[in-house]
């Protein structure tokens, strides 16, 4: 039985797809057979970030509608063993995701995979509800700003009431906060909410803090999950987040802003 993790936020542009790519890559690196599923039908991006857009033949909707088998649609990642991508359809709309269809596909995948990472679309409409419905765990991606935190609060409420676990009265979905685009200097200048502010409002367990970094943008543009950029702070922070997801204890790193270079430290730059 696979563990189903939804990566969600409510608000758009906060880093859901970046997070889905890195978390799934991290899980696969640890040896877990992992699939990352793009639920953003009509606006697919995941295949770009995973650098497999040229290998998409069949997609999630084709599988739901029985036009292709799961094995035909799943794309094996070339860099990391055990990692598979199920891309979204660009030409359909989100209504093509039916509850029964999604259930059927996830059930089939559950038999062979250890982790299924569902990359949710923004918003709280049908597509987002489909992505979170089956979740066992949720990674709520939040930027340190008021509107993003508000939307995350909203999506947490929806997780508690509209997920399958809630409907069946089972143990609730395990919620994790992932704070992205964190810039300590801007926090200190009062331009961003601090980690404490966000924790205070959302009060869920912290999975990690990803520093704002040019490396994330570069990696996305090159089609590399940023977790593979070992020497970047963002990559390290994602690796920590994966470790915490697997139950390991890791201290929070990279909270003190940009590391000062050796010379700068010497000469007090």
């Amino acid at each position: 039985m696979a563990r189903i993790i939804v990566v969600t936020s409510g608000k758009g542009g906060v880093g859901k797809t970046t997070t889905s790519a890195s978390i799934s890559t991290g899980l696969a690196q640890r040896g877990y057979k992992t699939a990352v599923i793009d639920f953003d039908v009509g606006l697919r991006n995941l295949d770009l970030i995973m650098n497999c857009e040229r290998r998409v033949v069949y997609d999630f909707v084709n599988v739901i509608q029985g036009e292709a088998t799961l094995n035909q649609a799943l794309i094996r990642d070339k860099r990391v063993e055990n990692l598979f991508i199920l891309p979204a359809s660009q030409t359909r709309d989100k209504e093509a995701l039916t509850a029964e269809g999604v259930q059927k596909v996830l059930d089939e995948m559950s038999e062979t995979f250890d982790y299924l990472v569902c990359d949710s679309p923004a918003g709280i409409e049908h597509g987002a509800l489909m992505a979170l419905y089956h979740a066992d765990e949720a990674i709520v991606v939040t930027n340190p700003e008021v509107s993003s935190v508000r939307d995350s609060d909203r999506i947490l409420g929806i997780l508690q009431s509209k997920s399958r676990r809630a409907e069946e009265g089972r143990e609730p979905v395990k919620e994790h906060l992932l704070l992205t685009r964190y810039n300590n200097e801007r926090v200190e200048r009062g331009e961003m909410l601090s980690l404490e502010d966000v924790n205070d409002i959302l009060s869920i367990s912290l999975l990690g803090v990803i520093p704002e970094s040019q490396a994330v943008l570069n990696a996305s543009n090159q089609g590399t999950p940023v977790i593979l950029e070992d020497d970047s702070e963002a990559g390290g922070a994602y690796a920590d987040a994966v470790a915490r997801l697997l139950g390991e204890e890791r201290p929070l790193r990279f909270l003190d802003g940009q590391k000062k270079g050796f010379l700068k430290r010497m000469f007090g730059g």
Partner: protein
Amino acid sequence: MSEPAATATENRACFELRGASQTLTVMELHHFDPDALERDLRDKIRQAPNFFRDLPLVIGLDHYEGNAADLDFFQLIGICRTHSIQVLGVRGGDDDIRRLARNAALAWLPGGQTSAPRPVPDPEQETAENTEESAPETTSTGAGRLVTQPVRSGQQVYAPEGDLIIMAPVGAGAEVLAAGHIHIYGPLRGRALAGVHGDTSASIFCQSLEAELVSVAGHYKISEDLQGDDWRTPARVRLEGDVLTVDPLTR
């Protein structure tokens, strides 16, 4: 596919009776003057047309001062109908009223505090919010309700009887309502409405007042009016006479 469905339909009773509670708008009638009623109603509707369209309405007679004989329910229904308001029934009043209501094919509800309305600070917003998800899990302790999970944006928690106790934050965009007091052991960032059945002695207690709206028995204040010394401090909101006041909790 069709066969099992057909047998399932045959086996199931064609209806089941269930208890349900619904928040209704009550028109508390003080006296009956068809012309004045028509005029005032039109004024009210102009302020919030969407709220009144096809609104189910109960005529409340707990505060009725006129004679039962003056009450012409047919005329009253007619006036409401011309403004597309649906009169469901009558609440309160004596046996005469009850008979009159029955003659006019209106349901009769016992008077008192059984189905008083929620305060209606902003009718359009109120109706828009009626499509909420179910609230976080709660335990009911006889009269009253205990909530241990955060109440999040878009959620609504309602204690139709007694007090509501919340041992977690109430987020911005969340709404908590109670017939009695509301205790929040955490910050109140959303809306809190105490004494929704008209209990003017109800209070709202919270550890940090950051509310979007607080209301006691229909008297409300919005965030803008709460930005005084008590903002972001432990506070109690209560009704003093007709004025909603905020007091610090610590002294």
